[in-house]
């Protein structure tokens, strides 16, 4: 009986989350697609034609996987952080907290919502990218699994941000000052082989570097890193962040007094 209750509650949270980001699609779906399309045009087409090849591929083909991943990361993260924080802000999170829903179901619902938006935007951006480049899809299994894990990890990150956020500034600080630099320095636009050894080492400390390169490997079959190691890191991050989120929910941090 309780299993049914939990499934219905989980489904309800997902429906609510998807309904939310579809309702405000001009804020959630359209801007990232336009922004990434501009990257394709400016960096891929205009600048890329002067750069030539990178990693054995046309520059446009080289940056497409990173830009798709950038869209997935940013949208998975921002969906959960903005949705959960706005529910805290409007106190509608209380609807969830008084209901007989276990913490892991609440968390899974929000995470699934974040992944849904990240994957939707990623899919649209992938379709747009096909106007600019051919994507050979070297390994569909690696491509799909890395994109799923990445959206999972950043949805969990967004949830932790939302739990600690006390105002709207707190919601935008991490994406602006942490996430964006990590993405840009995570090998989206270049191969780390171009960097001096010290900066190659620094780049390897950036978790996004592993995600971008693994995804690039799944599509193009080329990577700066060991794919198995990258997957191990992704799974480790997912487990640690999930555990942290459950611990925060159990403590009631930011949501119960």
């Amino acid at each position, binding site marked *: 009986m309780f299993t049914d209750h939990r499934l219905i*509650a989980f489904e309800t949270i997902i429906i609510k989350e998807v309904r939310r980001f579809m309702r405000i699609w001009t804020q959630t779906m359209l801007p990232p697609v336009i922004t990434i399309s501009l990257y394709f045009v400016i960096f891929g087409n205009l600048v890329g034609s002067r750069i030539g090849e990178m990693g054995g591929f046309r520059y446009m083909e080289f940056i497409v996987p990173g830009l798709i991943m950038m869209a997935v990361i940013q949208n998975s993260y921002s969906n959960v952080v903005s949705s959960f924080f706005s*529910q805290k802000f409007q106190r509608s999170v209380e*609807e969830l907290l008084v209901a007989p829903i276990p913490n892991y179901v609440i968390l899974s619902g929000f995470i699934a919502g974040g992944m849904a938006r990240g994957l939707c935007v990623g899919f649209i951006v992938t379709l747009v990218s096909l106007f600019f480049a051919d994507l050979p899809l070297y390994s569909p299994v690696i491509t799909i699994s890395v994109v799923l894990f990445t959206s999972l990890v950043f949805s969990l990150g967004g949830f932790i941000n939302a739990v600690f956020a006390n105002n709207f500034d707190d919601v935008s600080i991490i994406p602006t000052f942490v996430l964006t630099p990590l993405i840009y320095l995570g090998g989206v636009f270049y191969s780390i082989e171009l960097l001096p050894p010290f900066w190659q080492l620094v780049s390897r400390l950036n978790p996004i570097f592993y995600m971008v390169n693994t995804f690039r490997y799944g599509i193009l079959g080329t990577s700066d890193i060991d794919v198995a190691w990258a997957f191990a890191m992704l799974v480790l991050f997912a487990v640690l962040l999930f555990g942290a989120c459950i611990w925060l929910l159990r403590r009631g941090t930011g949501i119960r007094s």
Partner: protein
Amino acid sequence: MTVAISVDKLEKTYASGVVALKGVSLEVEQGDFFALLGPNGAGKSTFIGILSTLVRRTDGDVRIFGRNVDTHVYRTKLDLGVVPQEINFSQFEKVGDIVMTQAGYYGLPRKLAAQRTEKYLKQLGLWEKRDTRSRLLSGGMKRRMMIARALVHEPRLLILDEPTAGVDIELRRSMWDFLLEINRAGTTIVLTTHYLEEAEQLCRNIAIIDEGRIIEDTSMKKLLLELDTHAYILDAEADLDLDLRHDEPGLSLRKVDSHSIEAVLSGGRDINSAIAVLDRLGIRIVSMRNKANRLEQLFLSRLRASENGGD
């Protein structure tokens, strides 16, 4: 009789150091319509917050229908419906979606959730507004929507934290009728309100909380019987230029304005003795009303006694 709420030595100290509850013990019987009264900051909302798990208690034991809220989390939550004091729904969602979503949180299958949503939105006069964004509702409609939302899973215990605040008198009375109806159907109701007339009209039992302590826990009937002073305002037919002096014990008369007299009765005197005295004085009374709500007089006297450290 089964006990719907059993609270023992409940304590709450917030992180800020504010002590909101100081050993509150209370029982509410199943099927009761129970009033929890107290001034602002007395601890009412903290008490309700603890029952609904939104506030973590510092110490004490809480049981809902005999089940410990710590060990039977899901069952006790299923038994409970809460209408909070503050608006706590998404302002951007449609009325029907908000109620349907809440039904889903309680595990109601979609078809049943839709039936219940329709049932309660209709009963609370909001069915026509089901596709309206909630921010566009009036204050009274928002309150009623929160009641519909709390009832959608048909809880055995409904807690209402000032449900009629800011609601006009006509609507308030229709909400009273609705609440009495669901109480008669078996739902236990706990109500906090600032409208003492509301508590007097609706509730059978009452507790008064002040500074985190229960200072009165009794039946409404018993409490009102304790009131030995009644004040009335009597409206006279003609201008009052007569002398109001009299020798009737337990009756005090005072001219309020050119047409009104305040009559204070004590020692078991009833209003007939006041009217008889006024008749002897040649004053004809055409209408009368209570000077203040009876429960209000008692409430204030209990609070004053509590502040003075005695009862």
